[in-house]
């Protein structure tokens, strides 16, 4: 124990804090980039643009990554609330977030998610020693069953979408078709996204040197561009935002929100392909959440535990579980994983979370000022101008073609008010069927093999 403390309190590790702080500051910038999945963005910056892998010591690079992922997971709520969602994990938050924003309570919503996120980090830190004990067992139990667990997630996501509509016609069939219109769009969206996923995974049109970015145009098309188009078309403005002097919070809310969010985030971190949005939905239903504040706070915990937890899993000694792109990025620089490095990770994670939380209020105020000065739809136009050329730069015309198709699909749920989560079929369906061994049959059926 004393050896561990000496290691953690070694002044020689101050550089790691420095790099984690740099990572947090960098995440403020990243969180503005709409719908570029964080892991891919970090990949581009670290490996391609900055070539950090060669320039930094392994633990420094890891500290930078921890700072970025912790900072991103806490701070990305701010641009998501004021400018639209950043990626698919955030799309789950759009409706409640937009609702609070429309009521002038965007600031409150951001702080609640921040408190939730901080709660998630604290829980991760508390449970960190226990993870070493029980996660290897959990991994060995679930490893042969991952495909059907993902299958069950798919089944639940599809079955748990309920009909909408007023059903006020005197004709039963009119009411039936009105209700099923939304469900049908959801099912079609899921299926078409799944087919797109198979195509992208089997025959990517992205240049080979950017193969690790092959999923980026898909995500940009499915999640970013439809949202930006909606923002541009919508004639409206963000109402004046109220900044309360104090927040209405009690321990019961914090306890319930953090607990539910932690479950969802941990599930998403542990199970491959499942994202915070899907995990949050399931955990919200499992813990019977209804209160709006509870949902917002729980969401903050969920996405933080998902992003940070999936990276943390990689460092658990004896687990060898690589979840998420960030873990893959640091794989080449990590030679051995010891308990010391694991707890160093946890320490840097807590420091990064504290710093990110301190940044949250000034960052939110800055975004509110920006929204006041620049018309909302112009920010979306600017984002579109940044995103499309970025996709072209890194993925070429092939990527642009994929992005265009994905945009068409991404507009489906937006136009028909169906669940955007169905778009996750792009990963869930092909990965699930590939893991179950049916992937080649599907590819043969689609004429791709």
């Amino acid at each position, binding site marked *: 124990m004393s050896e561990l403390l000496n290691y953690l309190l070694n002044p020689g590790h101050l550089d790691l804090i420095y790099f984690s702080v740099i990572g947090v500051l960098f995440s403020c910038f990243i969180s503005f980039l709409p719908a570029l999945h964080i892991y891919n963005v970090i990949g581009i910056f670290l490996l391609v643009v900055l070539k950090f892998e060669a320039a930094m010591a392994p633990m420094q690079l890891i500290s930078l990554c921890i700072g970025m992922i912790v900072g991103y997971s806490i701070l990305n709520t701010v641009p998501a609330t004021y400018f639209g969602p950043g990626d698919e994990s955030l799309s789950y938050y759009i409706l409640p977030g937009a*609702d609070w924003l429309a*009521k002038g309570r965007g600031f409150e919503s951001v702080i609640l998610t921040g408190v939730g996120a901080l709660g998630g980090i604290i829980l991760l830190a508390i449970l960190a020693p226990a993870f070493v004990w029980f996660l290897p*067992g*959990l*991994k*060995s*139990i*679930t490893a*042969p*069953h991952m*495909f*059907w667990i993902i*299958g*069950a997630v798919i*089944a*639940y996501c599809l*079955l*748990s979408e*309920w*009909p*909408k*509509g*007023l*059903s*006020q016609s*005197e004709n*039963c*069939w009119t*009411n*039936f078709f009105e*209700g*099923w219109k939304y*469900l049908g769009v959801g099912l079609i969206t899921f299926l078409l996204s799944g087919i797109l996923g198979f195509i992208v995974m089997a025959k990517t049109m992205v240049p080979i040197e950017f193969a690790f970015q092959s999923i980026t145009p898909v995500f940009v098309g499915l999640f970013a561009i439809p949202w930006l188009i909606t923002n541009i078309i919508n004639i409206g403005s963000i109402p004046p935002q109220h900044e309360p002097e104090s927040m209405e919070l009690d321990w019961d809310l914090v306890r*319930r929100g953090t607990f539910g969010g932690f479950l969802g985030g941990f599930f998403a971190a542990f199970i491959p392909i499942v994202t915070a949005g899907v995990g949050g939905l*399931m955990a919200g*239903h*499992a*813990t*019977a*959440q*209804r209160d*709006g504040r509870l949902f917002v706070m729980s969401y903050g915990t969920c996405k933080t535990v998902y992003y940070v937890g999936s990276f943390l899993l990689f460092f658990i000694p004896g687990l060898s579980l690589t979840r998420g792109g960030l873990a893959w990025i640091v794989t080449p620089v990590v030679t051995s994983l010891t308990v010391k490095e694991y707890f160093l990770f946890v320490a840097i994670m807590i420091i990064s979370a504290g710093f990110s939380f301190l940044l949250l209020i000034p960052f939110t105020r800055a975004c509110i000022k920006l929204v006041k000065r620049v018309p909302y739809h112009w920010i979306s136009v600017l984002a579109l101008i940044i995103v499309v050329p970025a996709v072209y730069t890194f993925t070429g015309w092939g990527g642009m073609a994929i992005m265009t198709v994905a945009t068409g699909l991404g507009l489906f749920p937006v136009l028909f008010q169906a669940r955007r989560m169905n778009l996750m079929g792009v990963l869930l369906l092909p990965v699930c069927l590939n*893991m*179950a*061994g*049916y992937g080649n049959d599907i590819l043969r059926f689609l004429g791709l093999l």
Partner: protein
Amino acid sequence: MKGFTHFISGIAVASFFPQAVHMASQEQSFILCLGGIFGILPDTLDFKFAKYFHKSDFEIRPDPDDLDANVIANDVVKAINKAKETGRGTVQLHTMQLASNRWRSYTLGFDSKSSEVCVEIGPIVDTGQIPFEGTELKDPKRSVARVKVDDCEFYQQFDKKSQIAIMTGPCFEFVKRENGKIEIVFLPWHRTWSHSFTLGLLISFIVGIISFLTVGDGPNPELYTIPRWMLYPLIILFGSMVHIIEDSTGFMGNNLFYPFTKDRTNGLGLMSAAEAIPNFLFVWTSIICILFNLDRFRWAPDEVAAGISSQLAFWGWFYLLPLAVMAYYFFKGKREKAIKAVKTVDFDSQSGAEQETDVSVI
């Protein structure tokens, strides 16, 4: 119970079949998901199908430009009078959508003491049911109505007002009982045939015939006491049964032996369907059972190390401890509510139904 609770309970039930676990791990079979799908099926049938084909005797479509609570109350009384004459009467109340995110709300209640139907026109609300200040009707004669039903005594499990505001409005059935009382049945199309043992048995029987004709023995049949073809109907049957059993713990029961029984029974009333802790208790129990079963039924247990090294530690740390924490918070919550003398919101009943995003909780 929540849809997720039913879903994961169905999977948990399926995991008790060792052959199903082996099929999943060795043959990449999705058979365990079957339990989950049939676990949530009864609600799927109700809210995605049955709801649309239920015909009401009376439909109330209030005119938002000419609002009068008396008109609504009198229409409800017509349905009650029909029940008095013919034995049954149903009424569907519709919502009033004013704009994409604006709804005029109203409430309906039944006063058992005075045998009155009480209607109150409420404020305009948004889809999140947040009222807009100052939008209440100014004329008290038109905004509140209490219409007495002559020679009638109400019987209802819940004496709470039903808020009719957003999306689809509720449906009520009035049934004349042998003692002459008029029973008020909320959502008469819900938890009837779809939530019956008979339907579960029928589906299992049909699936059993198909699987008997199409499913072979599979590898190592000598290891199992149940033939492989029988797994499918059994998982379907137990998956749907666990839904019915879980629902029975709430206030609104099920029509267990439809069509041999005509009406829904009352639930045991042990817990409310939307309460967080009871829902999570079922979910957590299911997760623990699934993990325990996946581990003990792992393939080649002599060659593959167990994920659960100590069963005592597993059940103690992961089940008994969370159970104790849940019990603590559950009873603490009950005590606090009792002290505050606030009525618990019961989502089995009318009051919470329209506010619930996961309809299966109703």
